[in-house]
């Protein structure tokens, strides 16, 4: 098993005819992901190396039975593309696009929450990889193999760093989920922790958070009450000064809230072990799994 994407994934890529969209859609296809279609308004009827392109998500779903969408269009079109995918009945939407205005994300989030059964991962995320099954997004799949560690993270490269250290110790992953670095992610740590808790293949969960917002604190509460599997956490940004956006739109310490220390404290207060470096996270995970 794994979560979110697997052998049953039928992927439709919004923005498949763009440079990045084409590159990553084909990369995902080469990995073995079933890329069934793409959407670019005005380019319906064309194909990208055999993948048919449609003008609308509705047509793509009707013709190719897509059940997962990947959003690769520029920020000004991305919110619209997400709600279009949802409106066409696609239940799993992975938005890679960076730079979507926060108010747009808020409207999309609120709308999707009311449209039952639609799950959005991202935006501003590297996507989801279930090693050996499917890769939806831009995660460099070569570093990861199938295994029993679930990873959920707000950062892409930090995920690769931790995943790679685990791989070097001989451990693989059930799924790797980048929830993204924006202020209003479609899915939170809590949402993904719940999926990993329910996934029989996942035996340990690594959660990589960072400064800004309160998603890590909420995750700490949730873990204490609902997660039976061991969780190892990492928080980036202990040295970040207040009031400065650290690369990710959502990574900002506002006054005294959203600090790395407060997040680490909240997790440790709930008996979640927090590694001080990515290496230490991997070491704790390895020793827990080997015990």
């Amino acid at each position, binding site marked *: 098993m794994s979560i979110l994407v697997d052998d049953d994934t039928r992927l439709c890529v919004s923005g498949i005819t763009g440079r990045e969209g084409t590159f990553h859609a084909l990369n995902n296809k080469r990995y073995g992901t079933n890329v069934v279609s793409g959407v670019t308004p005005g380019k319906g009827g064309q194909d990208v190396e055999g993948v048919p392109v449609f003008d609308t998500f509705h047509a793509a779903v009707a013709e190719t039975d897509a059940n997962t969408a990947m959003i690769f269009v520029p920020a000004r079109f991305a919110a619209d593309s997400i709600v279009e995918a949802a409106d066409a009945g696609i239940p799993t939407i992975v938005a890679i696009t960076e730079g979507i205005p*926060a108010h747009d994300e808020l409207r999309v989030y609120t709308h999707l929450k009311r449209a039952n059964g639609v799950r959005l991962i991202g935006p501003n995320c590297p996507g989801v990889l279930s090693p050996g099954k499917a890769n939806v997004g831009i995660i460099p799949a070569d570093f990861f193999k199938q295994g029993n560690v679930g990873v959920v993270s707000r950062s892409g490269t930090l995920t690769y760093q931790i995943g790679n250290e685990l791989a070097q110790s001989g451990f693989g992953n059930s799924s790797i989920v980048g929830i993204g670095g924006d202020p209003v992610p479609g899915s939170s740590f809590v949402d993904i922790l719940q999926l990993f808790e329910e996934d029989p293949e996942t035996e340990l969960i690594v959660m990589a958070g960072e400064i800004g917002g309160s998603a890590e604190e909420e995750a700490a509460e949730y873990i204490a009450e609902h997660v039976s599997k061991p969780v190892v956490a990492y928080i980036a940004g202990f040295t970040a000064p207040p009031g400065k956006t650290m690369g990710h739109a959502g990574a900002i310490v506002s006054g005294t809230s959203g600090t790395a220390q407060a997040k680490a404290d909240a997790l440790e207060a709930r008996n979640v072990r927090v590694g001080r470096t990515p290496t230490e996270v991997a070491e704790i995970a390895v020793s827990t799994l080997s015990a």
Partner: protein
Amino acid sequence: MDLLEYQGKQLFERHGIAVPPGRPALTVDEAVDAADAIGYPCVVKAQVQIGGRGKLGGIKVAASKDEVREHAGAILGMDIKGLTVHEVWIESASEIEAEYYASIVFDRSAKAPFVMLSTKGGMDIEQVAEEDPEALATLHVDPLLGFQDFHGRRLAFDAGVDADLVRPVGAMLAKLYEAFVAEDAMLIEVNPLIVTPERQLRALDAKVTLDDNSFFRHPENAALRNPSGEDAEEQMAKERGLTYVKLDGDIGILGNGAGLVMSTLDVVAQAGGKPANFLDAGGGSKADAIVAAVEVILANKKVRAVIFNIFGGITRCDEVAKGLIEAFAQVHPDVPFVVRLDGTNDEEGRRLLSEADLPNLHVESTMLGAAKLVVELAAANSSVEAR
């Protein structure tokens, strides 16, 4: 982006929110001209993004042309908590009968705008919340429904606003909410929101934070500048399309991906070093981006050693190595570099670096090893007082 007070007030005016008449001025002469146009008495206000400027002498009332000249002369160029005043705002002096407080915050946890209203304006709202919670009314607004009349009534009644002002306060909050959404704001705060003797409401201060990601649809906001809040190197980085934050240490830091860079800062700090900056070279960094990044990092003269921490995903390590080799050829760095390349094409990247045999460049295989080495090298290089 945080706006200066007057930029916030100009934004308010576009949405029909009453503010005292005023004009910005960059020089003493401009300040006098502005005061003559507005009339006396007027207020000379330092334009810096920092609280408590009044207590530090950054806000002065002027009754005459001479006083404007005197106050503007003193305030322009003044240092307020480390920020230099480059601009003043000349504003018509207001008569104040009461001071309220109003704000709208983009509440990430609740996933909804959070509106606050208090009749205890002019002071820190966190203090009001603590000492007099009854005087503070709050609610969340459904982002798909928007601000309704009842929201305004409820806030006004709950905060204990004078009966004759319940409707005007509600209308003012509705306009603030409209501005909050229309301008893609993350924060709008009016403190104080004053009541004049004529029972009119006016925004006497304006604190506005805009979402940088929305600038593609707000060219007029994208063009706003805050010269006192922008560091020279941050400005240089922005022009080159790099994500850079200046810090006060001496170890220059570059990585790819915001999380990995934050993590690198932390690991360097744990090893006993002090980061000089945050610089995310981004996904798929090409050679020219690396050259630009090296230039920005070294523009900060406090930097005594530099660490490159790259985990290649989309970013290819050979591209980073090529960029570094090019940067050394163009910039001739005079501080040691520690480079850690891992991930996509890492072996090729390390081979290129080894062949280039760059002066004072050290290749490490792990993040921790690289952090320790750069801290040692920075300490050894501390005799270099000013580069």
